[in-house]
């Protein structure tokens, strides 16, 4: 095909330029430096550590079983599980707090509003109409009581609101500013109420009372409070969560729950091998205890996350962020964790030896793999390759305009569209060759480091599907997502080169956009408008995640409320739009 001919010719020219050799040498050097700086921390198997070097298995078991202070002891684990359960239960019963708030506010309002025989205005008018000493005394008494009551109620509401901003467990959706507003109103009210009534003259009393009556119309505030949307979770749902992840799991002697069964295994082992002081036996004991521990934490995570998910209701991530108690919610991650942990629970995978997410230089899980270094290297060198590709794209477009050879090329039998498509293709081939080179080289280094060891990964796709994939498949998927990411920037480079005939400007603008994209992770948060830009969708690999740790230095951690399909469509859509614009502009413009 003609486009391939163009692309191959373009690449062929490259071989005569010293730049390509410099780039390759630079990349090789970077790879070597990366190899030296690769220092993976072997994540421990997370094994518990019961027992002393010289002690017996039964001693170790005893500590686990009876200690109330030792970390990961049975007691501690039960407490941890229990406390989450209690929190959830507490939620159901805390619904009255809202009502209390409302009642307090309403009673204050009643005391300040006309129409109520005991209200301040009524008593006041009675006094004004007939300012006798008797009435004054009566007024004093009532005022004192009333004022006391108003003050107390106001302070009560104020205290409640003040406390709210510190709580994580609240039972309705309210923003911080709303709570602060209410807080302020009641604080002002409480301050406005005089503490010592007797010292005031009649006039002062009248003035104060009028002031209270006219300045504090609490109706809007009460509407606001009434308008708060309640966090509702049907009690059946709560019951299901607690049944699934607490009742069916917690340790209960004589029952058939998960933790009971796991405990029995520990107990039996300790029974059989109690006398042994062998390290191997103690390790084996600890492995069983670790399973118990992991199972507990899986249950805790499932309970907590399921509950959190319910609390989030129908709101999206962006909407949730503004409400008190929801500021660090990440719905995608919550779903991801639930999916993963449910899988582990169902498959009874409590040993923790499965490989967790591919981290930036951190080795996790028990076994190293030849691909560890490859993942690490490609993440770093991918940046360099991306920059090289942008250079290449700009030089074969703007560069060709600047040195005038575009004239000679445009008079060959190719339509303008084919010309620019050929250049795109050349750039993709360029990228592919470098990626291949880096992949193979880094894999070779990985093999040199860790031997021919390979493993598989448990990953959650799109927060709802668990996949167990071998190393090389994950690696290929990562390469594909990286390639698509780079293609995005290549497309932009071509567009800018076609619009601006100056290489320097096009290059500068492209780099600016690129570095913005790289830093996007750090500067954007899920509630800002930035999540609607294409930058939030550039890294498709983040949809193949694992809930336990961050997705690496360069992947984007924020969630946009999008899923894999949405991000893919956005990314492909933008690439298509940019390339179409490039083709149109290149087609129309006069050369020379």
């Amino acid at each position, binding site marked *: 095909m003609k486009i391939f*001919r*163009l692309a191959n*010719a373009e690449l*062929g*020219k490259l071989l*005569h*330029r*010293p730049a390509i050799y410099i780039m390759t040498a630079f990349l090789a050097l970077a790879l070597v430096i990366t190899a030296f700086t690769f220092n993976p921390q072997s994540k421990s198997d997370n094994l518990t550590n019961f027992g002393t070097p010289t002690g017996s298995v039964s001693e170790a078991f005893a500590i686990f079983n009876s200690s109330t202070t030792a970390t990961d002891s049975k007691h501690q684990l039960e407490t941890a599980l229990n406390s989450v359960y209690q929190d959830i239960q507490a939620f159901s019963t805390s619904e009255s707090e809202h009502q209390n708030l409302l009642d307090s506010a309403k009673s204050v309002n009643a005391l300040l509003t006309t129409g109520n025989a005991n209200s301040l205005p009524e008593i006041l008018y009675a006094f004004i109409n007939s300012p006798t000493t008797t009435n004054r005394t009566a007024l004093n008494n009532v005022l004192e009581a009333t004022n006391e009551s108003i003050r107390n109620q106001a302070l009560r509401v104020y205290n409640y609101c003040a406390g709210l901003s510190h709580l994580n467990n609240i039972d309705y959706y309210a923003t911080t500013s709303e709570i602060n507003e209410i807080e302020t109103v009641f604080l002002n009210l409480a301050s406005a109420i005089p503490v010592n009534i007797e010292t005031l003259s009649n006039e002062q009393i009248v003035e104060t009372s009028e002031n209270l009556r006219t300045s504090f119309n609490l109706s809007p505030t009460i509407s606001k409070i009434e308008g708060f949307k309640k966090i509702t979770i049907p009690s059946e749902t709560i019951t299901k969560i607690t049944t699934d992840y607490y009742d069916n799991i917690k340790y209960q002697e004589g029952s058939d729950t998960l933790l009971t069964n796991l405990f029995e295994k520990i107990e039996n082992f300790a029974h059989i091998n109690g006398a042994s002081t062998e390290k191997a036996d103690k390790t084996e004991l600890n492995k069983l205890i670790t399973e118990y521990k992991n199972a507990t934490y899986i249950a805790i995570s499932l309970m907590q996350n399921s509950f959190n998910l319910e609390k989030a209701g129908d709101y999206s991530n962006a909407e949730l962020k503004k409400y008190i108690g929801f500021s660090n919610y990440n719905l995608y991650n919550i779903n991801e964790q639930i999916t993963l942990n449910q899988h582990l629970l169902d498959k009874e995978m409590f040993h923790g030896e499965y490989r967790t997410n591919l981290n930036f230089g951190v080795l996790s899980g028990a076994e190293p793999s030849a691909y560890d270094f490859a993942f690490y290297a490609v993440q770093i060198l991918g940046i360099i390759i991306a920059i090289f590709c942008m250079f290449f794209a700009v030089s074969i477009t703007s560069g060709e305009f600047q*040195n*005038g*050879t575009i*004239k*000679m*090329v*445009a*008079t*060959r*039998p*190719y*339509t303008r569209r084919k010309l620019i498509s050929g250049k795109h293709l050349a750039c993709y081939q360029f990228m592919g060759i470098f990626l291949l080179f880096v992949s193979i080289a880094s894999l070779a280094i990985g093999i040199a480091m860790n031997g021919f060891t390979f493993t598989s990964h448990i990953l959650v796709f799109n927060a709802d599907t668990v996949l167990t994939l071998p190393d090389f498949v994950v690696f290929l998927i990562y390469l594909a997502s990286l390639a698509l990411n780079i293609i995005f920037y290549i497309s932009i480079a071509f567009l800018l080169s076609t619009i601006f005939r100056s290489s320097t400007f096009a290059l500068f603008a492209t780099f600016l956009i690129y570095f913005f994209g790289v830093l996007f992770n750090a500067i954007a948060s899920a509630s800002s408008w930035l999540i609607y830009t294409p930058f939030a969708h550039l890294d498709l690999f983040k949809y193949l995640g694992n809930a336990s740790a961050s997705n690496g230095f360069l992947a984007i951690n924020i969630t946009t409320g999008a899923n894999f399909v949405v991000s893919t469509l956005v990314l492909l859509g933008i690439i298509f739009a940019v390339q179409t614009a490039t083709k149109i502009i290149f087609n*129309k413009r*006069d*050369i*020379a």
Partner: protein
Amino acid sequence: MEKKTEKNEKSVLRVVNLTKQYGSRNAIDRINFSIKKGEIFGFVGANGAGKSTTMKIITGLAEATSGDVFIDGKRLSNNFEKCIAQVGSMIETPLFYPYLTGFQNLKYFAKLSGSYKRSRIIEIANLVGLTGRLHEKVQNYSLGMKQRLGIAQSLLHNPKLLILDEPTNGLDANGIREIKNFLVRLAKQKGVSIMISSHILAIMESLCDTICIIDKGKIVETKTIDEIKKSCNRFGTHFIRTSKPNFAGMIIQDKFNTKARIAGDKVLFETTEKQLPNIIVELTHNKIPIYSVSEINYSLEDIYLDVIGTDNAV
């Protein structure tokens, strides 16, 4: 639907009402001409007259505001690839990849055109006189060498139509002569149609079959060389040099019924080849000394300046 006249069928290039507007200015305005097979067509005009613009449109470098270009009967805008495959061009200064040698540059362009043959490149390099320096990097080439390379690249794919913008630019006298001979051979022996633009009229005069004069974006005149020469018989076809010009002039006018013009010691008059000997005899008979008898050669420059007008100040 165009009428298929004999001329249409035979023309390798046909330009119809071509107009190119830049802003409010018409760089070229309703240009019409056609080139036959094997014809060498000269495009003559001042700087900025519209020569390059026309050539850029024909080669697809620029888009016309209106009008059409037909190459070998096919409309360029609809069949760009097929049309341009027949065209070899060198527009303005030819530019190459400086980090490649002349050979590598030609190889690149040949590959783009779909047919790379080492022997062909060497052959063309010989034709344009670049053999010795072919394997040096282009950044070390002189202007003349780049010009030769430019012509070479236009020939790589055996085009039917050559569009050359100032092909003799930067060449020395030898080089110019070589290129001229080479182009004539191409046209007459291989039947390649050539469109050349230049403002060195002397070269055009001796090289082209047809001259097209363009001024301020419009075509002023399109004539074959013969037609030009024939139409410029203002002052006659022949002249003699004599010491008695007035007397000679009188005799010629009276006896041969033709206007004679005196310019210094020259007498200019119009006559045929048959009649000329009679005039000479008559003059000699009248004892008028004749020092030389010649045909009047009108240079293209004369014609051009005449056509464009003397107030064509740039």
